[in-house]
C-alpha cells in the first residue's frame, strides 16, 4: 500500500434495496489511487465499477446502503462527513466526467455559463471574473477559439468537443481527484485518442489522481499505471498495467484479455467467456462469484472465503488457484 495514497477505498460493501430483493452490488472492494497516478477500473457491465465511482463521489441513490468499509480522500473520511461537507468537496477537490457528454451538459445554457456556474459555486470566484476563468479552462483543453466557443450551446459542438467541455468543467477548480466514467464510449477512435491523450497530459502536469472506468482493457492498458479488475461486485485482481496484461493471474482476467479483439490474430483465437454474472440478489451467493463461469473451479471455491494472494510487486489476486 502506498503511504501517500490520495484516494483510499478499504473494504467497501454496498447494497441496493429493491422490490425484488437486496442487490449486493459491492463486497469488500479495496483500491488506492496515488497522486499523479491513473488507475483503471475494468469489468463488464454490472460488475459494479460505476457504483464504486458513485459511492466515492457521494452520488448514490437513496436505495443504496453502505454496509461496511471506508473511503478517504487525502485523509478526509468521505463516508462519515455529512452531505453538506461532501457537497463542498465534490466539484472542488474531486470531480467526475460522465459517459455521453451531450446528455450530461445542460442543453439550454451556453457551455461558458455552465463552467462559470461551477467556478462560482465551488471556487472563490466572483461572477464578474468567472467568464475569463471559463475561457481559460476551455483553452486548457485545447478548444480552438475559446472566446467565441464560450457562447456556444452543447448542440452546436461535436461529441468530442462536448467531452472536452466536460473535462474543462471537471478541472476548472483544480481538483485532487478526477473520476472518468467511460469518458470515450460513443466517441470515434480518433477522437478517443485525442481526449485520452489530453486527460493523461493534464494528470501528469497537475499531479492529480485519476480513476478511469472502462470496459476496454486495451485503453486501460495504454493509459493507466495500475488496473483494478472487477467482477460481480468483487475486485478480483489488481496489478500494474503492464504486469496485468502480460501475466493475468485470475482466470476472469485471462478470459477478458483473450476476449479482446485486439489480442486475437484470427477469429478462432478470440475467446468468449461462458455464462453470465450471478444474480446478485441471491441469498446463497458463492464466496467466489466467478465460480460458475470458471474452468478451474474446485469445490472449495464456493464453500470458503476466497483468499487474496500476492503474486508479484503490487499484484494481488483474489483466487484459490492464481496462475
Amino acid at each position, binding site marked *: 500500500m502506498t503511504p501517500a495514497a490520495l484516494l483510499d477505498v478499504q473494504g467497501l460493501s454496498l447494497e441496493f434495496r429493491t422490490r425484488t430483493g437486496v442487490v449486493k452490488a459491492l463486497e469488500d472492494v479495496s483500491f488506492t489511487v496515488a497522486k499523479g497516478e491513473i488507475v483503471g477500473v475494468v469489468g*463488464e*457491465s454490472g460488475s459494479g465499477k460505476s457504483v464504486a465511482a458513485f459511492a466515492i463521489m457521494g452520488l448514490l441513490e437513496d436505495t443504496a446502503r453502505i454496509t461496511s468499509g471506508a473511503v478517504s480522500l487525502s485523509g478526509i473520511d468521505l463516508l462519515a462527513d455529512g452531505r453538506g461537507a461532501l457537497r463542498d468537496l465534490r466539484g472542488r477537490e474531486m470531480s467526475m466526467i460522465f459517459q455521453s457528454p451531450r446528455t450530461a451538459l445542460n442543453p439550454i445554457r451556453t457551455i461558458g455559463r455552465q463552467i462559470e456556474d461551477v467556478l462560482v459555486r465551488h471556487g472563490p470566484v466572483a461572477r464578474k471574473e468567472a467568464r475569463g476563468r471559463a475561457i481559460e479552462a476551455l483553452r486548457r483543453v485545447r478548444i*480552438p477559439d475559446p472566446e467565441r466557443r464560450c457562447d456556444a450551446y452543447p448542440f452546436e459542438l*461535436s*461529441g*468530442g*468537443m462536448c467531452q472536452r467541455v466536460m473535462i474543462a468543467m471537471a478541472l476548472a477548480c483544480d481538483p485532487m481527484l478526477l473520476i472518468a466514467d467511460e469518458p470515450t464510449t460513443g466517441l*470515434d*477512435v*480518433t*477522437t*478517443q*485518442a*485525442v481526449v*485520452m*491523450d489530453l486527460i*493523461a497530459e493534464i494528470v501528469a502536469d497537475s499531479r492529480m489522481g485519476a480513476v478511469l472506468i472502462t*470496459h*476496454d*482493457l*486495451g*485503453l*486501460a*492498458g*495504454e*493509459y493507466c499505471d495500475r488496473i483494478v479488475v472487477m467482477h460481480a461486485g468483487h475486485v478480483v485482481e489488481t496489478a500494474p*498495467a*503492464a504486469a496485468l*496484461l502480460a501475466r493475468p493471474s485470475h482466470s476472469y482476467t485471462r*478470459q*477478458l484479455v483473450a*476476449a*479482446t*479483439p*485486439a489480442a*486475437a490474430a*484470427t*477469429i478462432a483465437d*478470440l*475467446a*468468449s*467467456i461462458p455464462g*453470465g454474472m450471478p444474480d446478485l440478489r441471491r441469498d446463497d451467493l458463492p464466496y467466489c462469484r466467478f465460480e460458475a463461469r470458471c474452468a478451474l473451479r474446485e469445490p472449495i471455491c464456493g464453500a470458503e472465503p476466497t483468499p487474496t494472494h500476492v503474486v508479484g510487486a503490487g499484484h494481488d489476486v483474489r483466487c484459490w488457484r492464481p496462475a
Partner: protein
Amino acid sequence: MTPLLEASGLARHFPVGTGRARGMLHAVDGVDLVIGRGESVGLVGESGCGKSTLARLLGRLIEPTAGALRFDGADIGGIPLRRFVGAPDRARIQMVFQDPTESLNPHFRVFDTVADPVRRLLGVRDARTIDARVARTLELVGLTGDFAGRYPHQLSGGQKARVGIARAIVVEPELLILDEPTSALDVSVQAVILHLLADLRSRLGMSYLFVSHDLEVVRLLCDRVVVMYLGKVAEAGPTAALFAAPRHPYTRSLLAAVPDPERRGPPPPRLSGSPTSPIDPDPNRCRFENRCPRAQPICATHIPELATVGAGHLAACHFAEPQPTQRET
C-alpha cells in the same frame, strides 16, 4: 462471374437548412463498391462519414440521389422503394441493425419477430412450415428452449442481438448488411456474437457488409476493408494488406488511434481538428486536406481519384506511395 452487389457512383444528398443557409448535405458522394459472392467486406470510418447512409442505400432502405446498384447482375437501383419491398429480391438482402433494443418491436414475441419476414417476404402461409423454419433459425443463433415465447424486455442484450440476426437470416439472404451489430455489447458478449457471425457465414455461405468503427473487429471478420471519409471512399483493399501497409494518410491515423497497451511514452501524432462540413463541399478539394499531415497545394485544387496501389488495393490520395517503414512484402 458477376459480383453479388455492385454499386457505381452511388450518392445520397440531404437538403438542410432554410433560407440563405440552405444547402445540400453530401452524406454519400459517388461511391463505387463491389461485394463478391461469399465475401465479407468491412466498412469503417468516423461517425458522420456516411457509412450508415451507405449501408442503408445498399440495403435499399432509402433511395439514392444518383448512381446505379446492381444485385446479381440485375439493376435494382431503378426499382422504386415501394415496389422493391414486394419484390423477390427484398428477401435476398437483409439487414441487422445497431441497437438490438430499439430495432425490435416491444409488442412482438421472439417468435413473431422472426416469423414476420417469412410471411411477408416469402409469402409462406402454412403454420407448420413457419414453425419449423423459425425453430431451425433460433437454433442456428443459439436461442433454444423457451425463448420463442419471450418479449424483448425479457431478454439480455446478447440475446436481443441474436434475435436481430435470426430475423435477418430466417429468409436465407445472400447478402447480410450488419450496421455496428456489436457496438452496444460487452466484450464477452461481443466475442460470442462475432463467433456466431463467423460461423453462420461459413455454414450458410452469405456475403457480409460489416459496418463498424471498431477496426479490430473488422480485422477479425472481413476479407476486405473499405475506409470512408466524408462520403467518399478513401481506401479499399484486402484486410491484411490494408492493416500492414495503409496507403491513405487517413487510414494511417485511424490505425494509429487504436489503443495500444504496449505503448509507453509520448503518443503518436494524432488527427487534429474536425472534418470539413459535408454541406456543399468544394468538388475540387480533397475532403481530408484540412487535417492531412501530408497536404500539398495540389490537394486543395484537385480531388484525388481512387487509383490502384496494389493487388486489389485502391487509395484516393495524390501521395499514396508506401511509407518507407511499412513497405509491402
